[in-house]
């Protein structure tokens, strides 16, 4: 089920390396800086460079091998993960024992953002599909930021609210469309 690291790397390589480098929003994981990744993440889009630097100072860089879990379903959430390089799959254990894949996330995407609000159990697992570099943003660091740099923290929380609202809307729409199909 999990693709090998080499296959994915080949898939991601742009056809024309020259134009690819100019127009692509992403660089290779090893070249892109933490600041650049954060800038691409919707949660931090409204932050100035100075503010981003503060956030870059408190995130944790983690490296995962293919098949390693970033977090597992039902564990309490403590951090949100922003993908710097590689690819992760969001999975839930199916009734038959096989994992059901809900989504595949690539660089710039983020996952586990609800952990920034409280430590309720994760609703799904996140597993690296290939060698993945991720940035972990810890809830307690955000809480501390609310005390020390309230302007930065409130900007992040505002964007987080927007993202959660959008996801809620999308879920409602899915439920609605499923309801219509059943009828």
């Amino acid at each position, binding site marked *: 089920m999990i693709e090998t690291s080499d296959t994915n790397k080949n898939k991601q390589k742009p056809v024309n390396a020259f134009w690819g480098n100019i127009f692509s929003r992403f660089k290779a994981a090893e070249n892109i800086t933490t600041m650049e990744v954060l800038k691409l993440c919707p949660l931090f889009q409204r932050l100035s460079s100075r503010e981003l630097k503060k956030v870059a100072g408190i995130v*944790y860089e983690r490296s995962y091998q293919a098949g390693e879990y970033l*977090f597992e379903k039902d*564990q309490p959430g403590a*951090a949100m993960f922003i993908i710097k390089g590689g690819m992760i799959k969001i999975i839930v254990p199916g009734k038959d024992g096989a994992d059901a894949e809900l989504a595949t996330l690539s660089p710039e995407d983020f996952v586990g953002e609800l952990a920034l609000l409280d430590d309720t159990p994760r609703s799904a697992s996140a597993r690296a599909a290939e060698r993945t570099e991720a940035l972990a943003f810890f809830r307690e660091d955000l809480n501390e930021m609310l005390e020390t740099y309230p302007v930065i923290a409130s900007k992040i929380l505002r964007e987080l609210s927007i993202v959660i609202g959008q996801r809620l809307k999308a879920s409602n729409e899915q439920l609605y469309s499923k309801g219509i199909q059943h009828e």
Partner: protein
Amino acid sequence: MNEDMPGRKQGHPLILRADTRKKTRRIVFTITAVVVVLTVGFLVWSLRPIILPIIVGTFAAYICFPLLSLFLRIGIPRPAGILILFGAFFLAVMVIANQIGSIMPDEREWLVLRTRFQYKLNERYRNFMGLGESEQTGNIIYKYFGNDLNRFMDSINQVLHLNKEERLLFMKYRWGFQNKPRIKDRYYEYFLKNTESLRSEDEFKNGAFDEGKGKNGDLKKESNIAVVMEAIKLWIITPLVFLFLLIDDGEIKRFFVSLVPNPYFEVSLAVFDKVNGAIGNYLRGILIESLLVGISYLILLSIIGFELKFAVMIGLIAGIANAIPLLGPAIALAIGSSYALIAENVDSILPFITPDNLIIAVAACVLIVMIMDSALFQPFVVGGAVQIHPLAVFIGVIGGSILFGFAGLILAIPTIVVLKESISTLFRELKNYYII
């Protein structure tokens, strides 16, 4: 054996199978862990003189972290905030050191205090046991327990007796030495009484009293400069630890978290944060509680007629000793009673307190502070403090003092609290994360 390892047979680099690699990794981890634990243990034991200065610096930094956050919140830049806190810390250390230096008894006062204490203790013992000048048989308590109590008093007297050099020095101060005021006649009489037996057995035989008369008999072999330099060498670490911990913007935490394997990453963050919060709250709570206890002693002892200098000194010691549950009040009672024992006259605002009942007044003060501590300070300041079993308190305090002396005595309980909180949080979180 080599048949399983074709790589080695063919001269290629050795390639280990997955299970062998796992086993090798486990062995390497175990050996590394053992080496690290032994090295840390060896370093802690070898460098134990600097443990107290380091802990004091860390403790001060922990207390200042919320202040630094407050500075940042009100818009003071981090470097300026650190500078303000460091300046305040340095100033506080200087003022406290100066104040302690001024209230601590000097060599002359120390000799007089010991002489007074020994004399008064023996006098009160004789009175209590009914061993006046005329009646030598003693009261009923003395009849039953006299032999044991005498042995106990002998051992106390052994500790309190001034040795030969100290006696010579006392005599010098008696006649005026180093521009210090002469020792009062009354205390000289105490001295003569205390040294009665010794003089008859020892010094008159050797003529030590006469020998000492022309000598420069300072007790200290080391010069004052050497002592101060030694103290500075050790305690210079404290402000440095304080400063570097304030400057550190999470780098130490990030370093240790980076060592944690991925499956334990989130749980390590959760544990670190909860332990950090609990320890910070405990340390800040205990500091404020100790401060309140110290101030309470200062006020109450001043009311019952203690000299301000001694009230401050006892308040300070009782405040520090308050970090030791159960034993703190006992230490306060012991020191307060010792002073009450030697008090010649009492200048209390309460007219019924005399030198004879001063010990009872001290006991009442300790009781009042204990009630205030448990009814007011602990619930409102320390809050849900970590509870430790009394047995753990005693073993910790005795073990700490055997291993690390005075520092171990004071720091044993905070260390046990920190360990208890860390271990319980670790196991709780590991369970929450279904790791165990």
